[in-house]
């Protein structure tokens, strides 16, 4: 009995130790940036697109990249995915240096990343179901496991009714939401948004931002959100998603109960970072370009 008791205590001690070790490991894991750029340079012929760019996106953080057209914002996303290769510098994804990875090696890295394209980039010949299920079909997941997962993702973007439709039958906003569902299948821990609200009406743009906030606050997803629309910044940096007592997702404004620290802003101009910090400090920045960008004139 005694021996059993001692054994149980030892087990508890060992469980506590293990839990503590797991916590430490988890903390250490969280200290590794989800995405890191180190002095990345990219030029097309004589035109410098990115000029020695360095930044980090920590785990669970949303990095909003602002800037005018042609400033190199979308190029950053393509570099993360390995769709483009830098001329020099290093790109790390989840602590792994992917700079020199071949197309074949990048395939496994891309499985950790979800990508939301500007126009959705849905496959025209596939239905909404097949678009969302694409990644799972490619991985050879059995169909009985694919369908519940596809439905879960379409519920997340409020589009379960459109499951059998073809992309041509969807509105612009619906295409983007299907694009988000497709990006989120397989629960990637990193999601890249390439101007997901461009050309959308304000309520639909708000819906897309809410999805990004839900991912950040409820799913612990790290993301890069490329945009040039100031209302996106307003939503993402001042509101957060929580689950209320009835189990519904609601959005609360920062300051009522907590202060958002997991959203950062980076502004780019002609391949250079001209600002990096919080949205509050962005609004206080004295740079005339930033002020013009914020005011819109």
């Amino acid at each position, binding site marked *: 009995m005694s021996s059993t008791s001692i054994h149980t205590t030892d087990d508890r001690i060992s469980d506590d130790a293990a839990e503590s070790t797991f916590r430490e490991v988890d903390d250490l894991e969280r200290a590794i940036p989800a995405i890191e750029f180190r002095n990345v340079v990219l030029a097309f012929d004589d035109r410098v697109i990115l000029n020695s760019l360095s930044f980090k996106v920590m785990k669970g953080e949303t990095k909003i990249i602002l800037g005018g057209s042609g400033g190199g914002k979308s190029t950053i996303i*393509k570099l993360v*995915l390995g*769709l483009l290769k830098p001329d020099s510098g290093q790109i790390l994804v989840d602590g792994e240096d992917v700079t020199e990875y071949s*197309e*074949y090696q990048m*395939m*496994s890295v*891309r*499985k950790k*990343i979800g*990508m939301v*394209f*500007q*126009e959705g*980039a*849905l*496959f*025209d010949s596939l239905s909404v179901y097949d678009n969302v299920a*694409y*990644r799972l079909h*490619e*991985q*050879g997941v059995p169909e009985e496991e694919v369908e519940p997962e596809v439905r879960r993702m379409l519920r997340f973007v409020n589009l379960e009714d459109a499951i059998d439709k073809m992309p041509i039958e969807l509105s612009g906003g619906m295409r983007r939401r299907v694009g988000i569902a*497709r990006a989120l299948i397989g629960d990637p821990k990193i999601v890249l948004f390439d101007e997901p609200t461009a050309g959308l009406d304000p309520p639909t743009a708000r819906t897309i931002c809410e999805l990004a906030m839900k991912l950040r606050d409820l799913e612990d997803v790290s993301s890069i959100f490329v945009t040039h629309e100031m209302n996106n910044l307003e939503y993402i940096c001042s509101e957060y998603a929580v689950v209320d007592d009835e189990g519904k997702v609601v959005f609360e404004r920062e300051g009522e109960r907590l202060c958002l620290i997991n959203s950062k802003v980076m502004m780019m101009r002609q391949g250079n970072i001209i600002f990096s910090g919080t949205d509050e400090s962005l609004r206080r920045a004295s740079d005339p370009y930033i002020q013009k960008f914020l005011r819109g004139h």
Partner: protein
Amino acid sequence: MNFATRALLELQESTLLAARSLGGLFRKPRYLPETIAQMDAIGVGSLTIIILTGFFTGGVLTVQTFPTLKTYGAQSQTGYLVAVSLVRELGPVLCALMVTGRVGSAISAELGSMVVSQQIDAMRALGTDPVRKLVAPRILALLISLPLLTVLADVLGIFGGWVTAVALYSVPSTIFVNSVRDAITTDDLIGGVVKPLVFSLIIGAIACRQGLNTEGGTVGVGRSTTRAVVTASIVVIIADYFLAKALQVILGTP
């Protein structure tokens, strides 16, 4: 970049693309349903134009050659001439040119549209290699379909020649058939199959390369489609010249 450098670069890139796609056929995942769908689009979809092209080419060969042969009293050799011309040369080349026009343009336009609408980027972002998913099934489908279409064009061409010879010029059917039988050798048949295999690679690689290399929106899709058809057609004809000579040397045919 001057014309010669650009042409060499295109040749290199198209060859690498074909090599990568063929290499991908031996590794998983294999895209069998896509390959079958492409065989349906390329092979079955091209049947009508190949039947018409083959039949009327054989017919016109008879129309053009019979009077000349008759001048020399060699009208009994009409079948020989039609069969040799078709099996060695016109069947493979005409078939390849028709398939280039119909299929090469479609491949290039489809892939080009996917590029400009970021579907290729999306595919790569979702962990799929577009070369294996899109290029390999198309090239494999061409490799299987084009030789079969060529054989069909040859057969229908000879049939067209026979119909014309018998109906228009009253050549006895047995004489025409016997001269066809005398004309075609095993070497001709080998050459008639080797050529479409090479042409398939040329058409597939050039059309896919041009499609995947599309730039500049919808205007760019049009440009790459035109470039694919023109380039593939010219390369097929140039390759035919060298293949004809190479096959003569290798097979020892006169």
